[in-house]
């Protein structure tokens, strides 16, 4: 099955003086991506720029409206994702536990649909 592993973290962890944390986490992500590639389970993924760079398009009552900012203003923001091909949820969870997080954070594991 294919799963998207969606990483939610507090962006403050990487701002300002925490620039070094960002470098470290990127190095760790590169290493993980390489390992998953070698294991033959990586299907895609990317890091995402911070939520303040996001623009959200909302369709409502047939009208489109743009607004500045991410879909949801939450403390933890979607910061990147992996797409992996593994046999089951337990295996996906095992990959999720290997994802580097700078501090507290969440990884949402979602199966993709067939189409």
């Amino acid at each position, binding site marked *: 099955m294919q*799963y998207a592993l969606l990483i939610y973290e507090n962006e403050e962890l990487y701002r300002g003086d925490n620039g070094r944390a960002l470098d470290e986490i990127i190095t760790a992500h590169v290493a993980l991506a390489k390992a998953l590639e070698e294991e033959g389970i990586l299907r895609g993924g990317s890091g995402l720029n911070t939520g303040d760079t996001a623009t959200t398009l909302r369709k409502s009552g047939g009208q489109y409206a743009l607004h500045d900012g991410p879909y949801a203003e939450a403390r933890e923001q979607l910061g990147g994702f992996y797409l992996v091909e593994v046999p089951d949820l*337990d295996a996906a969870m095992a990959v999720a536990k290997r994802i580097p997080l700078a501090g507290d954070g969440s990884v949402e594991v979602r*199966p993709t649909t067939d189409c």
Partner: protein
Amino acid sequence: MIALDQTAREAGGRIVAALAAAFRDLDLAEEAYAEACARAAAVWPAAPPLDPAAWLYATARRCALDMIRKRNVRGRLAPDAPEPEASAEEILASDARLIPDERLRLIFVCCHPAVAPEARAALTLRLVCGLTVQEIARAFLVAETAMFQRLTRAKKKIAQAGVSFEVPGPEAWPERLAAVLSTLEVAYARAHEDAAGAGTHAGYAREMLGLTAVLAELLPEEPECLAFAATVRFAEARRPARLDADGAMVPLSEQDPRLWNRPLIHEADALLRRAARLNRPGPRQLRAALHGVWCVRRSLAEPPPWSAVLALYDLADRDDPFVRINRAVALAELGGPAVALAEIEALDAARLDDFQPFHAVRADLLARLGRRDEALAAYDRAIALAPGPAERLWLVRRRSDVT
């Protein structure tokens, strides 16, 4: 149709588990099993099978394969030929012992942390123990439609999230086991409630001995797991003494210990000692110990262990109303009914209005204090909530003793 009812009760869980493990599809397993039962109801009166469980399993497997084929027909030109009916030879050779026991696997599926906590026990009761949605709804005090939706959502989640049908490896046990144990406890509590042992839950009370033995064997270093296995044994050991000649329930303190199953008690004692040696106390060990202190008793001539019972309840979780109610029972024996009633009256009566033990214990204490009308009213409420005929008969008798 007694043969079908009995087979379904004794082997239903095992058949559904084997189907679910084989096809990795809970809905398919349930539907195929239901279809096999419907066919059995139609066929068995004229042609009773040699081995009813094996017949149900073989038929359900064929139904499942047919259902898969029908699903796959969409987008294809011609369906495969249907699976042939079993030959006479196959029927003769069939044997229920050949049905693989996948119940443990199914339990880990139903109790996976990815399944909503409030759905886990319900799903296990439905699939492994074969309770109806109506029975489960009653046990969990929710409407039947709500329970049906809860089960449907849980099955959909398991299918779509790709929950594994394997027993997890040892590294995952700490996380996965707590969910399994609390689920099995809920399931066993329902079985234990049925004192007569003749209701729909009696079959799986015995199955629970097997399931907990497997768990204790798989997880010998998990004290709570050993303790739960001990509790089931202590409780099942007393089953022969739980009813009197009229079929009324006999409370623990009045049961004749000579009727208890001693070998099973020894087994339970050994499990509890093994758990204690691991030196990691927990609530399940406390519960098993409570059963254990009763089972030390050899005859009614020996005094009941009320002070030990009270001391153990003092160590238990005081936020649990069931603990408080049982503690009050011991307290009544040691400190008198007035002290015990004060404990009971301190509980949230509105929240416990549907909880039979609350009314039964309260009724008894009121009766002992000579508060006749209140005692009768509490007995009426307890009788209305009685889970089975044995409890009802006992309560009716107690009510008639109120003077």
